């Protein structure tokens, strides 16, 4: 069969078809992404002005507020407190979760390790458990009357800490995130390990490298792009933690209703009724997330290039 010259048979349909296929996605993007983001930005620079006694129609009007909402958001001790808590929480969750994900991915990739298909499924399992349910399960396991930890500590005659208050609360909360997130990240890293060319490892093995050396010197640097990706998504998810502290809250007095920034936004918007302040806080949170992830991305990029240059 002879191939027609490119474009000769291109009809009107070929030119318009891609736009047709993109139409549903584009419409949904406009309605449920672009429009809300624009509206949030608009709200964040407005406020309600009340005329007179604030009674009757037209007594309340939305007026330009400039950066006023941003100023008060950044000065709000509740917001700053929640931001600090979540930074501490993130500093625990992200390294531990990605460290474990990387470790398990490397172990899955090692042929001398047994029980790999069982472990792969078991570690991935929490991905299928909603955050709310994960928090319910762990929350009960933290309750002194239910917990096996407290049972063991009691038997051993040791003091039993309250896992849902003060310092231990960070560990308890981080544990839920690590439990829920390790599996998915492990799969992402494992997938890119599997895509690496095997000749490199064989050559290294012939040169007498141990499996550990191969993992540290060859595998980890080569899967750096997927590590950076998982890192990026983990930070975004961590800074927005909401479901888990919200769910644990009824089980303890140790979690204030503004524990995380997102809880603060929710509280302002739906309990306090100030959607303008809440929007400004949400925008600040989004910008901070971007800034933090890009800054860390740059640092890790510099590290990788230096490492490669050695």
């Amino acid at each position, binding site marked *: 069969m002879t191939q*027609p010259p490119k474009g000769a*048979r291109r009809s009107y*349909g070929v030119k318009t078809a*891609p736009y047709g*296929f*993109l139409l549903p*996605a584009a419409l*949904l*993007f406009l309605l*449920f992404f672009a*429009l*809300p*983001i624009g*509206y*949030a930005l608009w*709200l964040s620079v407005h406020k309600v002005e009340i005329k007179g006694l604030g009674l009757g129609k037209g007594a309340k009007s939305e007026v330009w507020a400039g950066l006023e909402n941003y100023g008060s958001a950044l000065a709000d001790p509740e917001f700053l407190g929640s931001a600090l808590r979540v930074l501490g929480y993130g500093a625990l969750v992200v390294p531990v979760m990605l460290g*474990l994900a990387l470790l*398990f991915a490397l172990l899955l990739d090692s*042929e001398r*390790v*047994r*029980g*790999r298909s069982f*472990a792969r*499924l*078991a570690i*991935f*399992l929490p991905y299928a*458990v*909603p*955050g*709310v*349910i*994960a928090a319910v*399960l762990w929350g*009960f*396991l933290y309750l002194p*009357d*239910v917990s096996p930890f407290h*049972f063991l500590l009691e038997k051993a005659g040791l003091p039993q800490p309250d896992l849902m208050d003060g310092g231990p609360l960070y560990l308890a909360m981080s544990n839920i995130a690590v*439990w829920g997130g390790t*599996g998915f990240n492990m*799969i992402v890293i494992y*997938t*890119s390990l*599997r895509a690496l060319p*095997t000749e490199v490892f064989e050559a290294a093995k012939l040169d*007498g490298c141990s*499996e550990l050396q191969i993992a540290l010197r060859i595998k980890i640097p080569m899967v750096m792009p997927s590590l950076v990706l998982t890192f990026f998504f983990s930070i975004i998810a961590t*800074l927005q933690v*909401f*479901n888990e502290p919200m769910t644990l809250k*009824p089980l303890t007095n140790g979690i204030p209703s503004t524990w995380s920034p997102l809880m603060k936004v*929710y509280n302002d*918007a*739906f309990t306090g009724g100030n*959607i303008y302040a*809440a929007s400004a806080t*949400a*925008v600040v949170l989004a910008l901070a997330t971007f800034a933090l992830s890009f800054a860390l991305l740059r640092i890790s990029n510099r590290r990788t290039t230096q490492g490669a240059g050695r």
Partner: protein
Amino acid sequence: MTGHATPALRKAPPAAGTTPGTAQAPPAPGTAGPAPRRTALLPTAALILGALYCLLPVAWVVVAATKADDELFSTFTFLPGTGLADNLGELTAYRDGIYWKWMGNSVLYAGLGALLSTVVSAFAGYALAVYRFRGRELFFNVMLTGVLMPPVILAIPQYLLMAEADLTDSYLSVLLPLILSPYGVYLGRIYAEAAIPAELVEAGRVDGAGEWRIFTRIAVPMLGPGLVTIFLFQFVAIWNNFLLPFIMLGDDEKFPMTVGLFTLLKQGASQPALYTLVITGALLAVLPLIALFLVIQRFWSLDLLSGAVKS
């Protein structure tokens, strides 16, 4: 399936000059022998420990769902109780079976939402992979920023806009915002680029097939596993979603499982008898997805979830 094929592929061919006997010897630096096949004990232990850690809460909820009210706080954590049938009966009877209503709602939101999401992602991914047109990269990049957009900045204005349209507290308010998944579009593009050869599309055109016919008859069958992946990803994402329905819905008849169990837990703070219902409900909520993954992993690979197209 890429799952279990590699160990065989990764076996090093025996190096010239080595006898089979040396395979069991510890590798001395500089020896060119095949890698030892012994089980690495410490790494295996670490991996199994990780697996057990991940199974622990699930194992607990299975045991705890069998405990009666008084057993929950008095017997050892992993000691099975005697109340499973009672708990299931009480849960079903609770407020005329509202629990099963929540379960049904979750299936509806996640099932229909994931189905629509898969269609939208397949359309967009196919267009981005197969056609060359103006604005292609721009569209893709704008869409990708959506992946990075924190849901928090979307949730409040989405609620207010839904309120403007008089749609809050409706099934649509939870369903519609979750149809478009930027990650789904991204996966759709990757799979379409890998699975659909340009020559095949061109051949279809030469044979006089229209663009729609080429998509449905050629592209969709080739995209099979990729579409299953997008569906599963989005199904899990919607099934696990809490924030959006929590904000949008007020009527508990429309709650999905996550929000329903949350409100039940909240009431439990003053009525501890509800705790056993929460635990039994949590068990029943976890089972369908676990079963889904166990069944589906026979003909579908987890690797696909991270956009792996090699195999």
